[in-house]
């Protein structure tokens, strides 16, 4: 935890400013921008879970959206088909995703590079196709809607504070995790799996645990997003959706815990503003993505760090 204690004064000041402005958003912004703020917060967590695997674990899953989508659908199905309270469903979703992630992890962690990515992709497409086709349970192409949280908690500001609190706690946990002995072991396994194994690090176990944790928190992000949208759509776990956390992570900076959070904020705000002006947002995003990879591969954080 050394790095937590030795964090400089400027870092603490920045954290306080960010926290204060995050808390004040609903006081100044209308419902639309509160919704955008929820999206930023939720995708920040989602992108950080991806970077736990990629930046810290050296794994590049092509199908991470499977867990985001599964979390969202877990909430939707529990609420619509089993008549659960939305908040209870929100609590259950990460566990469903952890179980699914554990199953995938058993096979993924033994693979390297492209094969791990492809297996994750195959699992995602399997899940996507089942959700797309299982009309009676999932609503197929139409998705499921009407997931309003009853009472005061259903107001946009309340959902925002709920998301902010849950994401803040999750990020604090993930921050601790990557700076714990477990996190160091995970990063060692990334840099050199053979040497790590030789000094007694169980590489497969470290990767597997990271996979389960990333899956569970990605599921929490998806579940929060489902409640904020009051609906879920199969597109959330289609293959193109898996690129979103990758774009956010690279945009913000891979070699930084906070990079994906910044990437999420920039991405979501950019998308919100640009889609107001043009229907060709994807064209701009594509050019932006290629531009970043070519010109500033260390992302925004890397740029400021010099």
């Amino acid at each position, binding site marked *: 935890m050394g790095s937590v204690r030795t964090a400089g004064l400027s870092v603490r000041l920045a954290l306080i400013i960010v926290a204060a402005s995050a808390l004040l958003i609903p006081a100044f912004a209308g419902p639309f921008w509160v919704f955008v703020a929820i999206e930023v917060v939720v995708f920040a967590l989602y992108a950080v879970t991806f970077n736990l695997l*990629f930046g810290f674990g050296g794994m*590049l899953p*092509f199908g991470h959206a499977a867990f985001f989508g599964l979390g969202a659908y877990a909430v939707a199905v529990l609420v619509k088909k089993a008549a659960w309270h939305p908040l209870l469903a929100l609590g259950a979703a990460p566990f469903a995703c952890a179980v699914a992630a554990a199953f995938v992890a058993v*096979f993924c962690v033994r*693979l*390297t*590079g*492209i*094969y791990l*990515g*492809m*297996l994750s*992709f*195959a*699992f995602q*497409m*399997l899940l996507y*196709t*089942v959700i797309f*086709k299982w009309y009676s349970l999932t609503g197929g192409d139409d998705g499921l809607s009407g997931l309003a949280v009853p009472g005061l908690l259903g107001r946009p500001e309340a959902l925002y504070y709920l998301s902010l609190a849950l994401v803040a706690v999750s990020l604090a946990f993930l921050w601790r995790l990557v700076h714990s002995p477990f996190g160091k072991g995970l990063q060692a396994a990334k840099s050199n799996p053979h040497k790590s194994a030789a000094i007694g690090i169980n590489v497969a176990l470290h990767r597997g645990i990271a996979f389960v944790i990333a899956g569970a928190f990605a599921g929490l992000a998806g579940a929060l997003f489902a409640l904020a949208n009051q609906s879920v759509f199969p597109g959330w776990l*289609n*293959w*193109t959706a898996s*690129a979103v956390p*990758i*774009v956010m*992570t*690279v945009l913000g900076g*891979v070699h930084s815990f906070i990079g994906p959070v910044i990437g999420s904020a920039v991405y979501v705000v950019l998308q919100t503003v640009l889609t107001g002006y043009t229907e*060709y947002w*994807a*064209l701009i*995003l*594509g*050019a*932006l*993505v*290629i531009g*970043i*990879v*070519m010109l500033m*591969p260390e992302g925004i954080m890397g740029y400021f760090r010099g």
Partner: protein
Amino acid sequence: MDFIASLDWITDPTVLARQFMAGLSNGALLFLVAAGLSLIFGVSRIINFAHGAVYMLGAYFAWTVVGAASRSPLIFAAAIVFSTLASFVFGVLFEILFLRRIYRSDQAFQLLVTFGLVLILGDAVRLIWGREENSALVPAGLEGATRILGVVMPTYRMFLIAVGAAVCIVLWLVLYRSRIGVLIRAATVDREMLKALGVRTDRIFTLVFGLGCGLAGLAGGLSVPIVSVGPGLHSQVLIEAFAVVVIGGMGSFPGALVGAFLLGQANAFGVLAAPALAIVLPFVVMTLVLMFRPWGLFGRPD
């Protein structure tokens, strides 16, 4: 939900032959796309997420030449040649301008560059050709049905099988019987060594990426009379090509051939046997292969 449909057809040779031929013609198109994807991966280790988008681009190129009402075989032939060559040139330019700079970068960056191309092409075709779904006619001489082996088959499907087989033979000759083929196969085994031996490997990378895109463009052009050419055309093709390449073995040419054949047949018979399961079958097989034999049927373990 009835997972297993009636199996009466299983003793009907006409149905069996018809499904087999239908699977073969779909497999032929799939082979063209997957062979390019696999070749590109084998040489450059890049997974081209834009491969389906290039296929779509090829379809639009061909449709632009053919139009909605032409039946002329000459114009159709010109359209196919154009879609192949234009996609080849597109691939060469993209490789030189972008991919070439990131071969040493992390895989995530390579993924993002090809994914960025997916986003750009997806919107570019909307900008250039609009949102409509376009269709074209089967050229004269290839319309109607032909009787072969006692089965009545759409002639155009037979034509696709013939083209697929011809391209397969030409590709095989190039890869296994020509000097450039030796170099391409050497690059899939050890590019550093090949470079150390004085071969201009950058040219091979450019050529192979262009070739792969050309094959995708060819498949896109050929599919114009049997699909509707619209902005969503790329997704299904890419996913099926991924499945083929994984099943056959990433980077393996025979793997792409066998994988495309198997997936074509699995789709054709799966639809009859268990329609609800057929759609997930490619991913189930893909998952199983990766779990137990990640290098595929014909690939080599790393």
